[in-house]
């Protein structure tokens, strides 16, 4: 059901006013952390809360923070000599991934435009616990309003002493810089994002080493999605027990879903984990547009999976979606009605991945091109209906092998997920 854990301020307070945010209890969480004597407690609470990354990969956030905090003292001074002087004093970094380039996803934008201070507070809390003095927001280039809101928020925070030197105590200094992306999907991948901030080609690195060990500028780095950071002030103040009261046992808390497509009221909705998809579509999004019938749902964006109309009762939680072979991904829910030619959608998805592959590893560089070519061959001369028997068995096997190898061997998430939606549509017989 709907719940306003992190969207409470959206549309209710002036997003440019720090005082409005403070009046809603803003920066209480940071004050509490700065005044505490036992700092490990906060990371343990975050772990107990069971918060997982909201960007798509769903890695446990508390575990990530703990790994980076543990790794930090192992990295001896000085930094590699190519690291710019102004970043050298930070022994670890906090990065907010606001590239939000997954198709059909717009929750981060809503959060940044409507409540920027909450995200910045979440980053500052994390920085204090990880002893970082430099943070970055990697912002999608097209998000002009979010850029203005964040820039303004940073200026205000610096002027009022919530960023800069001596934040709440003499020994805590932290500042945040915004970096704007130039439109590459791959730069939302965390290690490609680091390369981009470092001024290099946006190409992913082989993992391990993980960012918590060697991330930005070869230093331990905590990189989280915007929505993840927005959850941190709440968990810090209310504790893990309060957080776990919402959602399911395995997926605590809430999630912002982005509903788009053939519904009456598309938009971003914060829901409790475990809410049935049917409730989101029929009650929150107001049902399908009149005169149309549901054909398929693409969940998780281009990197996600198709659902059949009869799978609409699935609970929107990590375990619920995993049980039917899908993933929550970035929270995008694209509703496709019966007026749409699904083969066209598949072609568009294949073309998207072909265009966005960085070209570093063989399976993604060649596989995304071949996947598009196979689909083009299959759809040639079939404007709408393609009978099951029309797909030659060897072409189908080739599509499957190509997809399976991309999923199994690609260097990063882009190639690993590039065949998900297409193979799920074929497997579920949505295209025929």
């Amino acid at each position, binding site marked *: 059901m709907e719940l306003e854990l992190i969207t409470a301020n959206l549309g209710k307070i002036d997003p440019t006013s720090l005082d409005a945010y403070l009046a809603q209890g803003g920066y209480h969480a940071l004050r509490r952390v700065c005044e505490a004597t036992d700092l490990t407690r906060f990371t343990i609470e975050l772990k107990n809360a069971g918060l997982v990354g909201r960007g798509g990969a769903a890695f446990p956030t508390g575990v990530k923070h703990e790994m980076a905090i543990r790794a930090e003292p192992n990295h001896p001074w000085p930094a590699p000599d190519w690291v710019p002087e102004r970043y050298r004093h930070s022994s670890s970094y906090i990065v907010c991934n606001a590239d939000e380039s997954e198709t059909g996803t717009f929750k981060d934008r809503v959060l940044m435009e409507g409540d920027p201070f909450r995200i910045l507070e979440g980053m500052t809390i994390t920085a204090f616990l990880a002893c970082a003095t430099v943070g970055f927001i990697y912002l999608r280039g097209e998000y002009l309003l979010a850029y203005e809101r964040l820039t303004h928020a940073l200026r205000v925070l610096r002027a009022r002493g919530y960023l800069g030197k001596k934040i709440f105590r003499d020994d805590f200094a932290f500042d945040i810089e915004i970096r704007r992306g130039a439109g590459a999907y791959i730069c939302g991948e965390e290690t490609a994002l680091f390369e981009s901030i470092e001024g290099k080609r946006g190409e992913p690195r082989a993992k391990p080493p993980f960012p918590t060990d060697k991330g930005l500028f070869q230093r331990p780095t905590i990189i989280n999605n915007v929505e993840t950071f927005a959850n941190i002030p709440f968990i810090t103040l209310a504790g893990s027990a309060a957080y776990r009261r919402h959602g399911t046992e395995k997926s605590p808390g809430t999630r912002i879903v982005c509903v788009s497509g053939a519904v009456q009221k598309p938009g971003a909705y914060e829901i409790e984990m475990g809410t049935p998809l049917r409730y989101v579509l029929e009650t929150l999004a107001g049902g399908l547009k009149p005169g149309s019938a549901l054909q398929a749902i693409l969940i998780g964006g281009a990197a996600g999976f198709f659902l059949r109309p009869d799978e609409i009762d699935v609970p929107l939680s990590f375990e619920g979606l995993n049980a039917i072979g899908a993933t929550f991904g970035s929270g995008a829910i694209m509703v496709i009605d019966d007026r749409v030619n699904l083969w066209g959608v598949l072609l568009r998805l294949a073309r998207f991945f072909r265009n966005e592959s960085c*070209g570093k590893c063989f399976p993604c560089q*060649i596989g995304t091109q071949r996947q598009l*070519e196979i689909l083009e061959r299959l759809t040639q001369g079939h404007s709408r209906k393609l009978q099951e028997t029309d797909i030659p068995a060897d072409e189908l096997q080739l599509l499957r092998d190509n997809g399976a190898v991309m999923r199994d*061997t690609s260097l990063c998430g882009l190639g690993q997920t590039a065949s998900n939606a297409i193979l799920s549509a074929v497997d579920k017989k949505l295209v025929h």
Partner: protein
Amino acid sequence: MSDVTLTIDGQSVTVSQGATLLQAARQLRQDIPTVCYHPHFTPPALCRVCVVEVEKSRVLVQSCSRVAEAGMVVHTASPRVQLARKVLFEMLASAVDLSAAPEIQAQAETYGAERDRYGKGVKRRAFPLFDDNPFYIRDYAKCIMCWRCVQACGEDVQYTFAIYRAGRGFDAHISTFEGVPIPESTCVYCGNCVQACPSGALQPRRAYWMEQGLDLKELARVSNLEQKEKSKL
């Protein structure tokens, strides 16, 4: 430095801390094919041909750069790994002219790769022959994008940075800055990139033209003509 013990294909093996899975497997004389890996260079881990199956890992992992951990259970020739290698070689053969890369061809054959499985009409790497300097030719239709030349030119050997990657996706390729001819680049003609190229995309100029059937006098005459043409401009 402490040692690490892990299991590879049912055999227990002990390697020193920091050794990669590839080194561990080779210690057991297990054959793992590699394409982009070169013992003198930082593994770029991009050809993915050396992947192995590590239990509890969601995807296959590259053995060239993955460091061995105690208690790992590794399978170097499971059906999943075999399929991956077969399809990777099929992809490579579908995109690149492998005629000057007999080693890669032999590996592809070992894994049963069907050369034309993706069909004949698919997009291939298409580049004109770059014959723009007296020392080596660049035939990027044969380039597999293993980055060895870039590494040799840059941080792993020469620190010259005359060539780098350009374009992206299927159109990613190796290029000088802004695509200028080699003599206008920072190239110092050290030859390290030619030495490192595994697929014949970079070849010594004289040897290349002799293999094409051009005799040396003819080549010199052509070169002289080119020089004269240039000096006229």
